[in-house]
Every structure is written in structure tokens, then in C-alpha cells.
């Protein structure tokens, strides 16, 4: 059985569409069911549904052979994974943002306070630029932090940029352009090589068909 971890939420529908176009289909609606494990009709694949940030963990440990996760989540996890394919959905930017207008002026504060769901990425970004930083970990509504004076800046995902605008924030710098990736466990890549390559190939084909439409 080849186990694939999919992320609940914004990338679920497109991940399932991609699997379907690679002929991996399910008799139930994976996106709406409350179950967490689904066997595909082909009898060869199994999907497990986990929180987006957990996909790299399941795959790194081999609890799932492969998974579909955003690059943002993969980088934050620091998991050692094979990443054979970039997929064409889940596009967004991981960016540093600040209240409009103050973005370019040097802060009075010697240490920049940054609110984020991505503490590792944010720390690395500011360290690499020699900017003293205090990371404030939040698990949601990051845009709120600068408005209430909790943080000077935020590091967060930006899809359309509307949430930022509506909260008086603007992008200072894009850290990374993220999109969905196929990730594979390093040992599975070797011990289930035939299945892995078949799966990569099928997704690759499905992906190029979709983009040519």
C-alpha cells in the first residue's frame, strides 16, 4: 500500500483533482468526510488527511510514503525529504509585511518584533540580514499583531494581498514564492522505487495535461 498524506484545507480539492487525473479515485468524498484514512479504488493507494503543517512530518518519518504540501510548510518543518515535483496550485507568497508607510523607515526599536506562524523561516530571514529580531509565534490572524502594537512586522502567507490591504499592511519583501510540492520519504523513494516513480510520472502527466488546457 502506497500512503499519501494530503493537507486539510485550501489545497485539498486541487490535490484530489490531481490524484483523480492520475486515476487515483475514492468512493467517498475525501474533502467532506470526517474519516481520516481513505483507500483508493485501485486498491494500491491510501490517502491520509492531516493538518497542512504535519504533512512533512508524516512523510519524513515514513508514516506516509508521499505527501502534497506547500513549500512554506516544507521549509518551516526543516524535514529532510525528496521533493521531486513542483505542482501548479497552492500558489502564494511568504512575505514580510509591515503597516503601510512605516515599512521603509528604520524602526526606533533596536530589535524588530515579528509575529508569525513561521518562526524558523522568519528567524533565518532576519538573521541572514543581520537584523536583531524577536519572533512572536502566533497560530492565526497574524495581521492583527502590528495593529495592536504586539509586533512591528509580520511574516505570513499572502495569496491575493487583500487581507493585508484591508488591515493597513503592505509587503516589505517576498521571502519565497510558494506552491504545492510533491514530497516523498527518502527511504520509500529507495525501497518502493517502482511505485514512487510510477506515482511521480502519473502526477507529472496529470500536471502537464492540466496546464495545457
Amino acid at each position: 500500500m502506497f500512503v499519501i498524506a494530503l493537507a486539510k484545507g485550501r489545497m485539498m480539492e486541487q490535490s484530489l483533482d490531481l490524484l483523480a487525473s492520475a486515476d487515483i479515485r475514492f468512493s467517498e468524498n475525501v474533502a467532506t468526510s470526517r474519516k481520516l484514512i481513505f483507500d483508493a479504488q485501485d486498491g494500491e493507494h491510501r490517502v491520509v488527511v492531516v493538518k497542512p503543517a504535519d504533512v512533512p512530518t508524516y512523510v519524513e518519518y515514513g508514516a506516509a510514503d508521499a505527501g502534497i504540501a506547500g513549500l512554506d510548510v516544507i521549509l518551516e518543518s526543516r524535514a529532510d525529504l525528496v521533493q521531486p515535483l513542483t505542482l501548479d496550485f497552492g500558489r502564494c507568497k511568504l512575505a514580510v509585511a509591515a503597516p503601510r508607510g512605516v515599512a521603509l523607515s528604520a524602526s526606533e526599536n533596536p530589535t524588530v518584533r515579528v509575529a508569525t506562524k513561521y518562526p524558523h523561516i522568519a528567524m533565518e530571514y532576519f538573521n541572514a540580514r543581520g537584523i536583531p529580531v524577536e519572533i512572536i509565534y502566533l497560530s492565526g490572524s497574524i495581521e492583527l499583531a502590528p495593529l495592536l502594537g504586539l509586533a512591528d512586522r509580520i511574516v505570513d502567507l499572502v495569496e491575493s494581498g487583500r487581507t493585508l490591504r484591508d488591515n493597513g499592511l503592505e509587503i516589505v519583501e517576498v521571502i519565497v514564492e510558494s506552491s504545492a510540492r510533491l514530497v516523498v520519504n527518502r527511504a520509500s523513494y529507495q525501497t518502493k522505487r517502482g511505485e514512487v516513480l510510477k506515482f511521480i510520472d502519473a502526477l507529472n502527466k496529470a500536471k502537464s495535461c492540466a496546464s495545457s488546457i
Partner: protein
Amino acid sequence: MKAFTQIPPGTQILIGRAARRRRALEQAICSVFEGWSYEEIVPPIFDYYDVFIKGMGTGLEEQVYRFIDRDGNILALRPEFTSLVAKTVVTRFSKATRPIRLYYSGEVLRFEKPRGGRQREFAQIGIENFGSNGKSSDIEILLIAVEAFQRLGIADFQINLGSVDFFGGIVDRIDLPEGQMAKLKQVLNLKDQSGLESLLQELPLEERRKEILRAIPGLTGGREVLRQARSLIRNQRSVQALDHLEEILEVFENVGLARHLTIDLGEIQGFDYYTGILFRAYVPQLGFEVANGGRYDGLPATFGEDLPAVGFSFSLDRLEQIATPKLEVDDPAGEAIDGEAFDKALQLRSEHKAVRLCL
């Protein structure tokens, strides 16, 4: 008080059956090593920091537990064995007959995020062979690894064998700025087909070279991989690497072990350290490699003598996570005897029988 009730992160405690199983695993593997005439070496748990840093190179510094002695020397708890063993061989065995065969078993310490069943203190058991650089020493090491798996009753294991010189021969001929070379290695390490393709479009390389780089992630499998690789490359270093791998594969075919060997030219991790063959061993039940090794001819020279060297180690903590059907773990089932029957206890013990006093 915290120190009395908690344990520091990354440590582990083996008790009872788990400890007996660890010991049984160690003994089984040691007996395989001894069966191939390897002598045990018990190196110190700490040495000068420079021993490990010079030996293992960059990337490891941050993971080393170090401290300063009263004379101001920087010492470190061993983060691996190979450097220690290599140093000992150079300093103590300079006149010994070659090859020098040594095995070790013990804990190493690294300040890293515990993962894959490895804590900050974890157990390694392995061998080092110094002073012989022929293909026979490479094959000897591989056969020992195979026998260790078999001894434990692990029927389904896979050794992925590659060579630093195959990829080395290719990049020798590619002149790229450091940043792009690092990027190239990164996408190859991730086996990132999409990333490789977009990087290749930026790189000022001949189409033929791009063709080679594009093929690398897929160069894993049996004999056909060697054929495919030969059709792509002409440089001498890579060709010799392929010849060498083919010779090893032939031996494995002749002794009926080829099903355990996968030629893997697509793996480029661990390249700063190894100088010839390198390999990793996997079992289907575990998401992490259980053993790795290879040739590191450059290391002994760091300590003053240019000696060829090849070796590998098992991660005991990871082996413990998989089924080892042939490993016998004795349960101490002592005969229950009266708590005051000391004569009887001594009598039974003199016959090497287990006893359990009912206290």
C-alpha cells in the same frame, strides 16, 4: 528540583527487555565483525574538539557538545567514531601490517533535533578498514553489512551503492559560480525535477551536459543504470567509477546477493566526506536509513598519514525499531527458591542456572 525529576531532552534510558535486546543486537553484529577478523577498539568518549572538526568538516560544528579543560583546551564529546578511530590508527598503528581492521560500538552525542528514533545520544556500531584501496576492501565491507542483516533475520533490506567519483567527474567539467553549483547540488539532493529543469534553463551549459544532469536523479536501479550512465558520460573519472561499481555488482551477482544491491548514482548527499564508493542501507519498515558508509581516503591524511580507508556503521537505535526475527533475546527466567535458601542458590549458580530468591 528539576535535575532529580526530569531528564535532559534527547537522552534515553533502556531497561529490562529493551536493554537486553540492545545487548543481543550488539553481540550479534560484533560476532559478524569478528568473523571477518575485525578487532574491537574502545575509544574515549571525549577527545580534542579539532579531531572531530578536522575529520568531519563543516556542518557538524554546531552539533558538537564541547567543553574546556583546566588547561584551556577545547574538548568535545564524540559526535562520531570514524575520526577517533582514524586518529588512533595513524598515531598508534604506524608500523602495523595493513590492512588494519577495527570495529567499535558505543554512544555518540550530537546536539541536534531528535528525529528518526535517534536521540541526542545515540548508538552506533561499525567497522573501519585502513590501508587497502582495492575493490576487494569495498566488497568486504559490503558483504559484512549484508551478513549482519542476515544474522538478525532481516531478509528484506536494500543497499544503495553509489560513487562520489561519478558525480565528481561530471562537475569537474562544469564551471559554475559557487552559488549556482550549490543550487545545482541542492536540487539534485531533493531530486527536484521541476527545480532542476528551471535551473538548467538558466545555466550556460552545453545541451549534452544538461542532458547528463537531467538524467542523474533517475540513475538508480540494476545493471541497466550502468549502461545508461555509460551512454551519457565520457570523462575518465566517472567512467572509472562506473567500472568499479560494475565490478562490485558482478561479485554480488556471482555470490547470489545482487537482489540486495541497488546501483544509485542519483544520491549526492554526504559528498564532502567520502572519496569513492558510498552506500546507505534501507529496510521497508523504516522511513530512515539504518546503515551508511563508504570510502574516505582523505581522512587519515588529516592526522598525518595518507592511508586509504573504508567503513560503515549501523544505527543501533534504528535497528531496534525493526523486526529482527533471528535475534534471540534471553529472558532471565530464574528458578524461584526460598528467600533464605542461600546454599541452594549457590549450588544452582555454580551450575550456571538462573535463580530468583523470593524475598
